């Protein structure tokens, strides 16, 4: 059995891994784990990852969890072009710096924004309080400002002149908030009023390839509808984990 990737394209880190593997023609078996159907809670999947979370990687006897670890593993094992994770000490440190920073900042805030703005109202059947939503969006705003001012600055990509793992991880986070609003629109248009970020997004999409980019984001584009169709008993099972995740 070759490389297996356990993913749900509903999840941002899963999308980053999917795009990376496809872009670099890394051969793998896609094992889709549908979160909204509670498939990650199965005993079978617990054998792969006892934390019951995606993404997960299985390469023969070697099992690996955590998206950054998985991306770095694929980078090294499949000897992808240098720009994804440069050999140069300082260039690589820039990528490490972003990957470390984003974990509790952008990642957390995009997840909260998606759930508070879009998913909870559908999941719970009622909107989140305006105060909570406002606070969430304000925090997201601060994070986006740091992304622009401290990371992107006047560079083409987050860690330098070429696309790297940092950009993939970032773009899939931002699409989490942005894409979920289409075609409904309104509210969280994070690229509006941020021309620098919007231009960066275009560059990332061009570097990845429009077709692959679209393919990776199909699931999140339909997220709102998928959530509303989810089985109520599954929703109940998922709620505590969702709440823990967005704390």
């Amino acid at each position: 059995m070759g490389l297996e990737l356990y993913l749900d394209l509903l999840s941002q880190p899963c999308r980053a891994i999917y795009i990376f593997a496809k872009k670099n023609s890394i051969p793998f078996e896609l094992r889709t784990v549908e979160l909204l159907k509670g498939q990650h809670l199965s005993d079978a999947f617990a054998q792969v990852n006892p934390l019951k979370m995606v993404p997960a990687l299985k390469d023969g006897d070697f099992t690996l969890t955590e998206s950054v670890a998985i991306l770095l593993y694929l980078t090294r094992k499949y000897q992808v072009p240098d720009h994804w994770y440069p050999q140069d000490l300082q260039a690589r440190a820039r990528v490490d710096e972003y990957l470390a920073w984003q974990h509790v900042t952008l990642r957390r805030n995009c997840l909260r924004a998606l759930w508070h703005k879009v998913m909870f109202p559908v999941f719970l059947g009622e909107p989140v309080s305006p105060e909570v939503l406002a606070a969430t969006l304000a925090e997201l705003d601060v994070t986006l400002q740091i992304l622009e001012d401290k990371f992107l600055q006047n560079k083409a990509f987050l860690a330098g002149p070429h696309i790297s793992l940092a950009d993939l991880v970032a773009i899939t986070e931002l699409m989490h908030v942005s894409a979920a609003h289409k075609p409904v629109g309104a509210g969280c248009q994070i690229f509006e009023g941020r021309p620098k970020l919007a231009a960066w997004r275009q560059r990332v999409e061009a570097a990845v390839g429009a077709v692959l980019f679209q393919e990776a984001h199909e699931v999140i584009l339909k997220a709102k509808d998928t959530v509303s169709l989810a089985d109520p008993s599954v929703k109940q099972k998922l709620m505590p984990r969702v709440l823990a995740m967005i704390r």
Partner: protein
Amino acid sequence: MDLIPGSCPRCCPCCLRLLPPARPATMGLELYLDLLSQPSRAVYIFAKKNGIPFQLRAVDLLKGQHLNSEFLPANSLQRVPVLKDGDFLLNESVAILIYLSIKYQTADHWYPSDLQARMRIHEYLGWHGDCIHSTFGVSLWAQVLAPLIGIQVSEEKLKHNRAAMDRALQFMEDKFLRDKAFLTSQQVTLADIMALEELMQVVVLGCDLFEGRPRLAAWRQRVEAFLGADLCRETHSFIWSIRELAANKKLPDPPPEMRSRMLLRIARIP
């Protein structure tokens, strides 16, 4: 601050805070740290253990010095630790640790060149970011830092935090440590020092996290034995004294810009 590895940094005699260097900045590696902060301690302990020569730039978080470009470069993320190597500025403890391990060619076990061994460290650090970092900082916020600005963290939140710490420690033992000597291998890695420093943040408040956890307790002994008692004492002296300093009102009164940040941080405690 002299550059001789292993020597004790200058400490203020009344509060044991690290003092900034007596002489102005010169070329070479600079580490901007506050030993109040867990990731700062991890970087400090790593640099010292490996004899990496550096200028210590002490940044007093409680005084809000990280917001002041006199103490911390303005183009940083205004958090500690920060590394400055000539013109090169780097934030984030994990990035700094990896940079130092590669640049100074530290012993392989810290960040092994073997792919799978190295990835186990990143796997641990990913989980650490979600479940250890922040979680193990709550006790200090509740017992020392929030009271500095007159805030009390609710018993409900503390109860929630204790349960979260419990789960995290169980997982640390069952999924990471298991029967190994250290978290991701049979030798000390970057993962172990990051973990140790987070756990110390609670231990110094008199809470024995290791009670009823003999495997983790043994792990802690091994890590500290490897680092050496002197280095551990030096690195942890301030944090060990923090409760007493707070009780004797020897901690600084946070300035207004710090108060608002502290309030935000406290509000985020789940």
